[in-house]
């Protein structure tokens, strides 16, 4: 029986136990629900939960340990000289699992290994069968036990409440733990990197050229891992993007929120938000194939030397991408400014633009700053557009007409292709990722603080 059938069977049992639990409650109530402590559905949910959850929990534990237990059994029967040598052992285990899976005819191996392979297949079959039996019996036991516990004054409602709270705790724990896990995996690789490269050279170095020799006989540079040029490039592009996104986003938000007729707004606002739905890779080739050549050609007419991959092209397009982000967030905060403040201003004889400039905008400012900071952290982390349009040259420049490179672009190029995973070159990607993560985290925390401060104001 495969896993999906097993899960289906448990689900069916749950449904059944829901029905039984509910029936029993109804029977106990003698036709009047007020005789029960809880509603009949609560008793049903209670039995269903006790039927399904322990079984699922068991399944999880089982799969965690099945592999290692079976492997230990197989290994213990192998000849001593194989167990002693870790290289031979992993080779042997590989062949054994191939044989167990029904292949391995082409392997030339000793009869012990073939035997072990058969035994592995056997053990796996037994384990799977045992799992089915154990799991279904746990489910059934849960059903029966919880069914028998049902009484008229049992607090099924409170129990169900507790169970659902536990489920939510598990879900949020998964979300938080996975974040922590990501951070830790970054951190370990970064520490590994710092054992090869001095952290000070990394943090304050002005040169970035990660090409190192892979083989001893190869001719290559020593490799320089100074992250400053990458951050300069990132900040330059972010700055250009913000110069586009903040004014355009803000003014369109003001127009949409304060001036536009409801009919126009109903059409224009979703249209603006479509921008947010365009995949970033599309923006990327728009930048690389349309905007960059346009800038280069027009720059040539003006006598400017614009390289065909420029920070300007990437920044402009990234700014366009962020416009809806800025505009819908600032529209939200401005529409939260109470109507009484507008009325107060109008009643003093202020015009619309005076009211917006002097009352609504200052009142919404903390929220708008929060929105802009969130947009900045979005721009810093943006990858696809810059990969396609900004270039790879780690130029230490603030000239927007030249090619620059960003942290995210370098991470992509470092990890794409054939790499050995313990060279400084590859590991530097993790260090860059960690620094980038810390920067955007800091910005987000700061932005949320600002937004919170704003919220307190109108409570």
């Amino acid at each position, binding site marked *: 029986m495969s896993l999906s059938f097993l899960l289906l069977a448990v689900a069916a049992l749950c449904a059944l136990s829901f029905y039984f639990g509910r029936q029993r409650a109804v029977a106990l109530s003698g036709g009047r629900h007020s005789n029960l402590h809880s509603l009949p559905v609560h008793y049903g949910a209670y039995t269903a939960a006790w039927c399904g959850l322990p079984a699922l929990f068991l399944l999880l534990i089982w799969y965690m340990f099945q592999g290692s237990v079976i492997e230990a059994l197989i290994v213990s029967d192998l000849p001593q000289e194989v167990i002693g040598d870790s290289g031979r052992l992993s080779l042997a285990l590989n062949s054994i699992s191939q044989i167990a899976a029904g292949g391995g005819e082409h392997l030339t191996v000793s009869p012990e290994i073939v035997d072990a392979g058969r035994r592995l297949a056997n053990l796996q079959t037994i384990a799977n069968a045992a799992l089915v039996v154990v799991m279904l019996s746990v489910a059934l036991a849960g059903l029966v036990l919880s069914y028998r516990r049902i009484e008229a004054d049992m607090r099924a409602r409170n129990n169900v409440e507790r169970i659902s709270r536990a489920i939510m705790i598990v879900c949020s724990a998964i979300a938080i733990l996975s974040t922590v896990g990501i951070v830790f995996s970054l951190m370990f690789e970064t520490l590994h990197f710092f054992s090869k490269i001095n952290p000070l050279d990394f943090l304050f170095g002005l040169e970035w050229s990660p090409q190192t020799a892979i083989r001893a006989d190869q001719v290559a540079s020593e490799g320089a891992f100074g992250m400053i040029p990458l951050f300069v490039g990132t900040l330059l592009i972010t700055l250009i993007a913000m110069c586009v996104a903040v004014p355009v986003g803000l003014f369109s938000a003001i127009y949409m929120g304060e001036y536009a007729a409801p009919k126009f707004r109903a059409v224009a606002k979703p249209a603006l938000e479509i921008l947010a739905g365009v995949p970033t890779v599309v923006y990327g080739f728009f930048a690389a194939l349309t905007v960059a050549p346009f800038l280069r050609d027009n720059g040539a007419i003006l006598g400017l030397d614009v390289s065909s991959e420029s920070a300007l092209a990437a920044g402009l397009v990234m700014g366009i991408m962020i416009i809806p982000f800025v505009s819908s967030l600032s529209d939200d905060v401005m529409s939260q400014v109470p109507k009484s*403040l507008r009325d*107060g201003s109008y009643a*003093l004889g202020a*015009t619309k633009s005076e009211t917006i400039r002097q009352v609504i905008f200052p009142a919404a400012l903390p929220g708008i700053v929060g929105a802009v900071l969130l947009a900045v952290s979005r721009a810093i982390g943006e990858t696809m557009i810059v990969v396609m349009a900004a270039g790879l040259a780690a130029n230490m420049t603030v000239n927007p007409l030249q090619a620059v490179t960003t942290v995210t672009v370098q991470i992509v190029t470092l990890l794409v292709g054939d790499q050995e995973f313990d060279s400084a070159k590859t590991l530097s990607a993790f260090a860059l990722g960690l620094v980038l993560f810390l920067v955007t985290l800091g910005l987000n925390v700061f932005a949320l603080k600002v937004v919170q401060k704003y919220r307190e104001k109108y409570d």
Partner: protein
Amino acid sequence: MAAVSQSAMTAEPSVEKPKMTARKLDLFYSDNQALYEVNLDIPEQQVTALIGPSGCGKSTFLRCLNRMNDTIDGVTIKGDVTLDGRDIYDKRIDVVQLRARIGMVFQKPNPFPKTIYDNVAYGPRIHGLVNSRDELDEIVMTSLERAGLLKEVKDRLQSPATGLSGGQQQRLCIARAVAVSPEVILMDEPCSALDPIATAKVEELIDELRSNYTIVIVTHSMQQAARVSQRTAFFHLGKLVEVGETDQIFTNPKDERTKGYITGRFG
């Protein structure tokens, strides 16, 4: 009785020297009519109280007087409203200038999230009433003084207005309205969000302001209307039922509905 109420409808809506007048004023929110042929005169330098049960149109009428209803979508207005004999709904009237002449104080105190000083200075600044910082200072001080707030706040003019108590905030809003030197001040239930002590202060203030300004106040409290106003108008279901000297309305109402309302039989 019908005859009495008919005569009350037409009886003396006009006064000798009206600052503002409304004639045959109809108002519609989209398709719902909220005011029916209201005729009312607002006498100069007196307090006129508008009373009536909730939803009777008194606040709506008040907002017609400085064209605040313009900010609401779907409102249509028929009839005339005049200020010093000029129609305020005339196309040539600039609503911005109009509202500088007719100030308004709202039900809930609504100070701007600025300093106390900037709140009062807001109106003078946008209308360019002052040429120097000193002049502005003087206007702010006089306005706060007039609103009876100066003593309490003179040491913290630069602290945020939202930190004041509710009663202080409302008096700040009055100071803010006074700072533009309006001729008329409209008040929409200015004390409904205040405690009795703050209410007493605001009422006292209204009485003092009467010597310089024409005041129209909407109130739910009949005691308040009796205490602060010289004339009272009773609205019911969008119609002006009866208007007259406050004493007369409260002691000897001509209309049965007015009588019913002020004696607490309905409303």
